[in-house]
């Protein structure tokens, strides 16, 4: 049977819950908005239901620990094709297996989920590293990002702990929404200005330009030509990040 859901993680877990409830194995689970009719007959749309998704989470936590729920959420944020079915298979395995399967690296579903989670962690870590804030005239610090995965929901803990005292915005220019912080709360926001992928020069303070120049000077000065190794350099800083790094 084919299930569709509203595109949220809660919605996906609700759909999975529904498939267990009506005892109909899922052959496909897709987001409602991207479902293409014709191939699989009539899909069942399952609306997001908090109580149901909570029950799935609680069941997973009980059997495999809260880390399993986190892993599935991270996999969901990867937006990889068919990731819904991968999550569904993990839940099914959990239900049918008497033991905690989270560390069963012999099982392809588990291994693949761990691999995706590792990619997510790496992307989050790269955001921690390569986000560059620019100070605008009205005191807001803005950073634009275009991550490979939808990692913005995972960024608040790091950045709010680090920068609690001023206003900042990290905007995902690919998915067109941002993480806006002002002391001491954050929201996810959509903005009209942000059709563009760069921040206009006029918005920036002169101090901002000075510090960008100083940072470029610093970056140039720490280079040791005798040790140059561009292959290693690119391995660490993939090309897709270069446009956001003021120093390179």
């Amino acid at each position, binding site marked *: 049977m084919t299930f569709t859901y509203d595109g949220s993680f809660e919605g996906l877990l609700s759909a999975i819950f529904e498939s267990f409830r009506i005892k109909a194995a899922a052959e496909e689970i897709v987001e409602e908005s991207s479902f293409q009719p014709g191939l699989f007959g009539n899909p069942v749309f399952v609306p997001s239901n908090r109580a149901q998704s909570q029950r799935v989470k609680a069941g997973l936590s009980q059997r495999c620990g809260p880390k399993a729920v986190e892993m599935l959420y991270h996999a969901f944020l990867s937006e990889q094709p068919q990731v819904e079915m991968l999550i569904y298979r993990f839940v099914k395995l959990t239900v049918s297996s008497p*033991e905690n*399967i989270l*560390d*069963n*690296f*012999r*099982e*392809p579903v588990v*291994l693949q989920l761990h691999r995706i989670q590792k990619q997510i962690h790496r992307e989050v*870590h790269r955001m*921690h*590293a*390569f*986000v*560059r*804030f*620019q*100070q605008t005239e009205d005191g807001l*610090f803005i*950073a634009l990002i275009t991550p490979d995965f939808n990692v913005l929901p995972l960024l608040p803990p*790091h950045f709010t*702990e*680090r*920068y*609690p*005292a*001023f206003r900042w915005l990290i905007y995902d220019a690919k998915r067109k929404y941002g993480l806006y912080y002002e*002391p*001491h709360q954050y929201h996810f926001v959509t903005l009209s200005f942000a059709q563009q992928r760069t921040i206009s020069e006029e918005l920036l303070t002169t*101090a901002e330009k*000075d*510090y960008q*120049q*100083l*940072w470029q*000077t*610093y*970056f*140039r*000065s*720490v*280079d*040791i030509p*005798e*040790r*140059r*190794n*561009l*292959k*290693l*350099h690119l*391995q*660490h*800083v993939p090309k897709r990040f270069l446009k956001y*790094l003021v*120093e*390179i």
Partner: protein
Amino acid sequence: MIERIDEKLAILADAAKYDVSCASSGSYRKNSKDGLGNSQGMGICHTYTQDGRCVSLLKILLTNYCIFDCAYCVSRRSNDVKRAAFTVQEVVNLTINFYQRNYIEGLFLSSGIFKNADYTMERLVRIAKKLRTEHKFNGYIHLKAIPGASDELMHEAGLHADRLSVNLEIPSEESLKKVAPEKDYASAYQPMNYLAESITGYQEEKKTLRSAPTFAPGGQSTQLVVGATPENDYRILHLANSLYQHQQLRRVYYSGYVPISNDQRLPMLHSPPLVRENRLYQADWLLRFYGFDVNELVDDQHPDLDQEVDPKLGYALRHPEQFPVDVNTAPYELILRIPGIGVKSAQKIVQARRFGKLRAEHLRKIGIVWKRARYFLITAEPDFRWLGFDPDHLKQRILSERSRKHSSQLALFK
């Protein structure tokens, strides 16, 4: 205004770059609600230089004026270089503004010695203190501990800094005397020992009293220059090992000597000994995370690490009697010794084998370096290591596979 700072920054960053330590890890410092920054244990590299080194901290000298004349150092007083000095406020502003823009994890502040040790150290400490108290800065601070500075200043430095370091630089005292006659080991060990004692003292206190102040929670580190003087790897690794054991250092850095000096007391190298430096780091990792004893890596017969193969593979080839290791039954410690298996993979192997016997396909998917590991392990498959275990043969085989790979990669660009 900006031009002056720009010029100083160029000079004082350039002069600091041969200190290879850039770690921002191993220290936990929480932020306050109105503060700036934190340290979460895991370091972050915010960018990488063109030689592939991590840039985590704003690493600068306060000044490159120096009263000493150490042959290995660009800032030695007899060297004809441009000199500059930052003011305390300039360093503070750079740190805060770079940090706010997420360029850096914090500050690594070193200095040439001007006037005397106390005078220099006092300024380093003043900067750290200003950052911590006036600007509520909770990012990472690494300060150089200047040998000869008073215990009071060292103590205050420890209260504000995450990490302190005294660089030994030259890996034996006889060599040090030749290239830096004004220095000796005792003056470097004195502050190191003082710091080691304070760090463990405060750690103990913290166990019983949560409000006890933190003292250099990131510990201390040092740097050894490799290839400027004749010490072999045996000397260097034994020295490092003793620093880990007795001074409880968190890290020893190895810096392949970059021929920056035309000083007669130092060798002329065409290029820095990067492979040797890399092998030393690998050996250092084996000491700290893989349970190897230093004598297992270098000994009288093998005083230098094999540059062709990594030290773990080298160990395995010298000890055929200890292999193959059965991944399904061997203890974790032995699995960790198999070439091509790292800490993460070893942990996964031990976890996964509870669910059933592991075969080669499982190991590959777990992510071990199969082409190296396969000669040294047994899986649930029938053992078909038809090669036998002739170390020389194996080494040649592993090396030739590697060169085949390299040449085929090159062929792509022809």
